[in-house]
């Protein structure tokens, strides 16, 4: 097939016209669809632990969330630990990274403790605390409100007498994690001979006996795969720990022990989320207060300036009148 010059010219013109029309349409569409800010930041910020510790190199959790939304690495948050990195990776649909931190500071839930007999009441730690978790006044002893402390250790360096230590957070009973989940009362702790566990054969016997009609085998796969959210979605929190599934399992899988452990982990995640939202609130309130105080001081300074200006003016006039 021979293509005439005419046809080529028409083709070029036609294609250019399509391109121009398409470009114009897209330009209008991009004007109409302009997005202000990035709503993704809020979802990321909700996953960060809100310690406001600055170990990621940003002045707080919200700035780091903004940086992640702009493409920064997601593994710079030591207080959040590997769990937070995994959750952010899950949210963004990317591969998880290994936490970028020293091994020894990971997975330790610490709080600040002021050795009260050594405190000289300098208030430097109060100014450093990002979440207002230290009470005290000038030349009076300070102390840490443990429930509000996020363990960011920003108060340790400013202390001139080195009286602040980081200690493990005292555990309330809600935080108790079974160290030996196989100690739960069931057949295997009543002196019955322990059978070695073999792989699940998907017989469904556990689902038939479950009094709350859960699917124990699905929850087990989720827990074994480390997908706690998925297990909760399958109804993990409704499990009543009756261990009926244990009794019928032909593979002798300790299902109830897995569920007990998973329930504790799920509860801890809930508590952590509550604590972090409280910490965020306190951090935001503190920033608002600091801003308000700065504004008030600016106002006072301005008032003083105009006052002294008026006094000077008066003196000058008086001098002129006298001369």
């Amino acid at each position: 097939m021979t293509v005439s010059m005419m046809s080529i010219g028409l083709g070029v013109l036609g294609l250019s016209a399509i391109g121009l029309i398409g470009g114009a349409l897209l330009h209008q569409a991009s004007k109409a669809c302009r997005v202000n800010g990035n709503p993704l930041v809020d979802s990321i910020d909700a996953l960060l632990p809100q310690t406001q510790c600055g170990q990621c190199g940003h002045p707080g959790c919200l700035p780091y969330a903004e940086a992640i939304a702009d493409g920064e690495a997601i593994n710079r948050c030591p207080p959040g630990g590997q769990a937070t990195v995994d959750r952010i990776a899950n949210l963004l649909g990317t591969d998880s990274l290994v936490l970028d931190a020293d091994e020894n500071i990971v997975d330790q839930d610490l709080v600040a403790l002021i050795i009260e007999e050594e405190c000289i009441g300098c208030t430097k730690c109060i100014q450093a605390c990002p979440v207002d978790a230290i009470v005290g006044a000038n030349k009076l002893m300070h102390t840490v409100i443990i429930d509000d402390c996020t363990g960011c250790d920003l108060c340790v360096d400013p202390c001139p007498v080195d009286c602040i230590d980081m200690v493990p957070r005292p555990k309330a009973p809600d935080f108790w994690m079974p160290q030996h989940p196989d100690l739960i009362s069931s057949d295997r702790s009543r002196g019955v001979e322990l059978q070695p566990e073999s792989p699940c054969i998907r017989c469904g016997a556990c689902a038939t006996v479950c009094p709350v009609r859960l699917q124990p085998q699905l929850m087990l796969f989720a827990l074994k795969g480390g997908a706690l959210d998925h297990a909760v979605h399958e109804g993990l929190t409704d499990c009543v720990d009756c261990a009926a599934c244990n009794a019928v399992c032909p593979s002798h899988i300790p299902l109830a022990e897995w569920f007990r452990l998973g329930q504790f982990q799920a509860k801890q995640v809930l508590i952590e989320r509550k604590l972090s939202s409280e910490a965020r609130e306190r951090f935001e309130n503190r920033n608002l207060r600091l801003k308000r105080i700065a504004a008030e001081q600016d106002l006072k300074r301005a008032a003083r300036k105009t006052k002294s200006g008026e006094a000077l003016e008066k003196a000058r006039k008086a001098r002129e009148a006298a001369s």
Partner: protein
Amino acid sequence: MTDLLLLIVSAALVNNFVLVQFLGLCPFMGVSSRIDSALGMSIATTFVLTLSSVAAYLLQSLLLIPLDVMWLRTLAFIVAIAVAVQFTELAVKKASPLLHSVLGIYLPLITTNCAVLGVALLNTNRAHTLAESVFYGIGAASGFSLVLILFAGVRERLQLADIPEPFRGASVALITAGFMALAFMGFSGMTRS
């Protein structure tokens, strides 16, 4: 009307674009790790497919045939598809920034999704009318969405399953895709073409 319905069934099930004609495999493997992102991808692709089959029909009948420049067909269709995809990307970014970041590179890559160009070219090859083009596009899109979401559901389960080490990840996904293609062969012969 029956013809149009048959056209949809044919494009969606019998000649499924992904599992029978093996078009659009890139997003099929790439965005199928989670159901919600697969759902978003399905909606975006459906939108682009329907829009681009209309655009391709109009281009064909109003520009390419009158000017006798059929040799520009592929180029002109790609331009129309690219515009449709860019428009979809803007809309998704506005409507759901989370979905936008989850879909990532696969959203602009709809442009080079062979299923989209395939629908446009098949429409012109078979001399479909406007209505037929639209219904063929919708059928292809629903077939793509169905398979993508089914596959995402299977893969979510696979993540928790106890799979032997050498088969983890992409290998078991490809094997599963093969089984699904086998299953879809059961539809063959239900309609002509």
